[in-house]
């Protein structure tokens, strides 16, 4: 079993709801795709080459400031439950964790993590430099990721083309290699049925949306990851400014939708929010999906001040710790144990009870 306590905040510092606009935005993630010059891309390389890549990046990381004290996890040497745990913490992609239905863990698949930044190794690209912040924090996140990129770039030789920029295994990432994603909660737009219009508008301006776990994941609990679609033809600054401007607009729409709901359908919304809260507070069995779908209206209720005594941080924690691997590890049972839904309901009850007291 891996020891996640080795990580500062267990690698979930981004959950603490301390960042800007935390009532709407859970986290901001930025990744830069980089490959080493003189090496073939991941799809064509051998186990030996992946070990070489791992070796040189780890050496560069040890000499760096930002990753000097990084914790390393070799996913190819971890049990499935531990890989799932890292994925549920948003530290590694599903692909790297080998969690796809037909997925196997690739030899050399690893991640280095130091506080809010890290690097995935032997993913689709040799390096995926990544940063994860609480709330809506594009500038802060990019500043760190950019600094780490510079540090590693001085010690390693990245594949770079004068016209195409940073070269990546898939041409959809070439150029800046930058993908910035903002994980935002939009229940107001979903309830007012405005969401499709907004998502369509975002697509028109070159942005894309995904689910809670990024690429290939479903939208659950009305959480949307909004990110830039293209990586070439604009500078990093332009990509971030554009995304930032659009996310601010979406945040405004969401606030407006919430005002409309409270004005025109106050009783319906109050009922929805408290009904969800009641279920979380007293249910005896919860699937993860049901928990997510109930946490969403409760989050809305906390956001608009209907539920006074619950902190966003608590809701964020529930989001992570009710996931199958997290709950199974905490409860000391298997992730497929039939008892899991009962344990989940008990866990949620306990957390909410300790927050609001027995009679809350």
């Amino acid at each position: 079993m891996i020891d996640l306590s080795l990580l500062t905040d267990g690698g979930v510092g981004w959950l603490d709801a301390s960042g800007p606009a935390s009532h709407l935005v859970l986290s901001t993630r930025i990744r830069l795709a980089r490959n080493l010059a003189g090496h073939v891309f991941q799809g064509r390389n051998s186990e030996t080459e992946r070990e070489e890549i791992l070796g040189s990046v780890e050496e560069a990381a040890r000499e760096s400031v930002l990753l000097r004290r990084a914790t390393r996890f070799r996913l190819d040497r971890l049990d499935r439950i531990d890989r799932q745990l890292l994925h549920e913490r948003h530290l590694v992609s599903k692909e790297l964790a080998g969690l796809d239905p037909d997925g196997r863990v690739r030899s050399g698949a690893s991640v280095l993590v130091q506080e809010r930044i890290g690097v995935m190794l032997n993913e689709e690209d040799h390096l995926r430099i990544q940063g994860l912040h609480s709330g809506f924090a594009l500038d802060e996140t990019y500043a760190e990721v950019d600094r780490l990129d510079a540090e590693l770039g001085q010690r390693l030789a990245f594949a770079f083309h004068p016209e195409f920029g940073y070269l990546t295994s898939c041409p959809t990432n070439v150029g800046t290699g930058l993908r910035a994603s903002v994980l935002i909660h939009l229940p107001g737009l979903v309830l007012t049925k405005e969401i499709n219009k907004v998502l369509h508008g975002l697509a028109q301006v070159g942005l894309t949306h995904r689910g809670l776990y990024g690429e290939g994941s479903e939208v659950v609990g009305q959480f949307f990851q909004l990110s830039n679609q293209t990586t070439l033809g604009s500078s990093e600054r332009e990509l971030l400014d554009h995304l930032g401007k659009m996310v601010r607009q979406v945040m405004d729409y969401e606030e407006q939708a919430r005002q409309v709901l409270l004005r025109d359908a106050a009783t319906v919304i109050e009922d929805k929010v408290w009904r969800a809260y009641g279920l979380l507070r007293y249910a005896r069995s919860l699937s993860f999906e049901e928990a997510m779908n109930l946490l969403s209206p409760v989050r809305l209720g906390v956001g608009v001040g209907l539920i006074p005594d619950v902190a966003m941080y608590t809701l964020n924690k529930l989001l992570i710790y009710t996931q199958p691997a997290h709950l199974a590890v905490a409860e000391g049972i298997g992730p497929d144990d039939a008892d899991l839904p009962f344990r989940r309901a008990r866990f949620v009850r306990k957390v909410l009870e300790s927050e609001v007291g027995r009679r809350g």
Partner: protein
Amino acid sequence: MSCDQCREREAVIQLTQIVNDQVTTLHLCEKCAAEKGVDSPGAHAKTPLGTLIGAAMGKSTEQAPAPRSSEVCVRCGGSFQDFRESGRLGCPDCYRSFETPLRDLLRRLHGSTHHLGERYAEREPAAVVVDNEQAADLREQLRLAVETENFELAAELRDRLRVLE
């Protein structure tokens, strides 16, 4: 910037068209763009890459001959056919080996082939620019750490300062 068509709403889409070798660029609002039949980049994104590659290749056959499937990258031995099937290139040199069809594909995917972001070769000097404010802040923290005899923290702060400077 206002829309080139209606001159009223704000332009949100840049439409570049090539007609008879003439490049025209229009800045359009959402409504006028829809009237011109411009679909969203998101719609492209949902198309599997393979279809796009196929489309790019189809287009490129009119202008430049696509590499025959037997042509391979000198560095990794991967063919363009391999790329069409997997959506992944074999190595950095593939970008040179299949430059012509890739340029078409990049134009369709990103609307451009030119990297305008940070340039790798020029990075080093940029990376060592001293962030004065942060350095001052670190120096102050270092002074306090030494004063309170927190030498472990002091050593770390000194390291961070060294990198900044």
